């Protein structure tokens, strides 16, 4: 089980993501913009952040830039976007810790990706 923060201004998408992640046993915190998501990350440690790009107040790119700093426990960020310039988004973020997923996306595939990221690393298991 992972603690996941969702930043999405579209209610329907936010709702369906919460439903899928909740059904798969994850703890989900929702935010309607980047600033709210950043506050949620600062408030309690999270494993993952799923964020949209175009959001009011603070967009997904700005959120991504500050998320790892605010929340050191954050393992990975999924950026979902309907923008055409995805390559530009990739260029603006830390590519090895951020995955850009174009909309429309498959919730099923997103769950798989989330679980892949949330698996404990072999190095960690040896250390334990």
């Amino acid at each position, binding site marked *: 089980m992972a603690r996941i923060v969702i930043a999405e201004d579209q209610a329907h998408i936010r709702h*369906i993501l919460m439903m899928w992640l909740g*059904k798969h046993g994850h703890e989900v915190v929702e935010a309607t913009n980047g600033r709210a998501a950043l506050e949620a990350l600062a408030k309690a440690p999270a494993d993952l952040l799923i964020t949209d790009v175009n959001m*009011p107040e603070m967009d997904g790119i700005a959120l991504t830039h500050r998320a790892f700093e605010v929340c050191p426990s954050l393992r990975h960020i999924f950026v979902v976007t*309907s923008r055409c310039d995805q390559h530009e988004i990739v260029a603006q973020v830390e590519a090895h810790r951020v995955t850009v997923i174009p909309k*429309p996306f498959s*919730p099923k595939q997103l769950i798989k990706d989330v679980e892949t990221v949330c698996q404990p690393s072999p190095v960690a298991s040896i250390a334990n």
Partner: protein
Amino acid sequence: MAQKRTPEKSEQHANPPPTGAARWRNGGVVRRHTLSTGAVVLGVALLAGLLASWLLESQATARLVNRAPSLLRLSTQLVSRSPIQSQVELARLAEEFERIPLVRGCEIEVRSVLADGAVAPSSAPAMRYQSQPAATAEALRLSAPIVDAAGLAYGNMSLSFAAPEYAWWDARLWVGLTMIVLAAGVALFIFDRRAQRALRPLEQVQQNLLAYHDGVEPALDLLAVQGGAGVIADAWNTFIQGVSELRREVERFRCRDAIQSAHSGGARVSGQVLDRLPVGVVRLDERDVIVHANRAACTLLALESSAIGSPLVKSVRETEIAQTLISLRGSPCGATRDVKIKSGAATSVVRTTVLSGGTEELLLMLQDVSQTVEAEQARDEFLAHITHELRTPLTNIRAYTETLTQDFLDDEQTRRECYNVIMSETRRLTKLIEDVLSVSQIESGGGRLVRAPVRVEELLRQTMQEMQAAADAKQIKLGLKIPSKVPMVSGDKHRLHQVWTNLIGNAIKYTPEGRSVSVEVESEEGRLRTRVTDTGIGIAPEHHEKIFEKFYRVDDPGVAATEGTGLGLAITREILRMHGGSIRVESELGKGSTFVIDLPPLRSIEREAARKG
């Protein structure tokens, strides 16, 4: 004979083989000299023949003079030995004498001889014979007495001789002449062969010159004599080489003069033409000095007329622009670079295309592509917006459809919720596509109005009825305030319906539940004014103009939470503009908004026609 040129060369020069008179005219020097020499020899031989005939005649006359006396003596002796008794005998004897060659005539006078052999006495009549006068001239006449054995003269005899004549065609002359001609011919033949061998280069030179004269041989180099034909050929070839070089030099000078004169003459004309071009043309020399800049280029680069002849860097206000243009030197033809040039508050984009980017000359074409760039940017933004707006409902449709197939979905209410989302997002997608099509039609000019008199009251009531369901869903009170007499408008009913649907729909969307939306119609200053007022979230003044731009949505949580394509108000404004109307917004944040529409009423003539119709 003259040396023949090689076939390749003949073909190369297209020199046809000479025939007839041309062959003679074009014949070799030696041949002509040989024939003329032959004619001279023939003439000389003829003269020699005439001289020979004269000499022969002279010698024959001399011989005649020597022999004539003895011939006469022998003749008289013969007469004296032959006793002549009758005139007949005398005539026969005289005729005998006349047959002697060279004897022209004979004249004999004798007394007859008696039977005993004695001569008749001198008193007896003498017999006489005289030849007929001959046509030929008499050269010599000799006379001698005819004496008997006793020495007594009993007659007289005269012989006249003709001069011997040798005609020039005399056989003997022919022999001599033939010998002379043969000798001369042999001599000429030998001379001809030797002369030809010696003068063969000259023959070739002559042939080449004739061809050159006829315009067949345009290149002097080709007039050189081939095959190492000796000193003459070498001298000729050296001469030709010199002339050829001289000619090339002259041609070079002539070309340079022609180019310079064309340049100076044509420069004025081409300058006028270039000045009328809508694009700028700038030519820089190898030192980046402006050689030419047409009017458009001067305007685009803000060049003074005195800039011609000055370095580009010093002439253009912004050094960076000049350096960008200069950096295009060496670029291939057709290479382009966009340069932003500030002119007051405006910035124009100038596309620079390399026409010639050599080291000696840099020729550039300048085009103001600001509008094109703006249009391209608008198109890109439009596409980006469309893609974004399409992906959002598609994401919902896909996600909720996929959810419906999952095992974990055992809740009927959630299933219904998914279904409703799919349906509403499908409607949203449909609306978006319709709006995009409307924008596209209006912008391409394809959305022409189907004008007809429209009763605003009817149309508004119909629209309000259609929107009632949406208002009821949010418990919003819809109100319509309309005067009893509303002027008709000339317009497209379908498009005006779209306008009011958009505006009333927006008012309902952005108004919280339980509040009200009102529509008020008034006729003011000859215009029909409609006010659509909501009691919603309101719009900050800085957005009042921008909300009518395509895809513009206010960056506000309340707006983001509301479905919308960002196209409705843009379409509304465009439709009203096409009707000669206008739209504006009066709003304060948090205090609701009023959209004010003005439409021109139907003119009186149209109103009359509509009433009759």
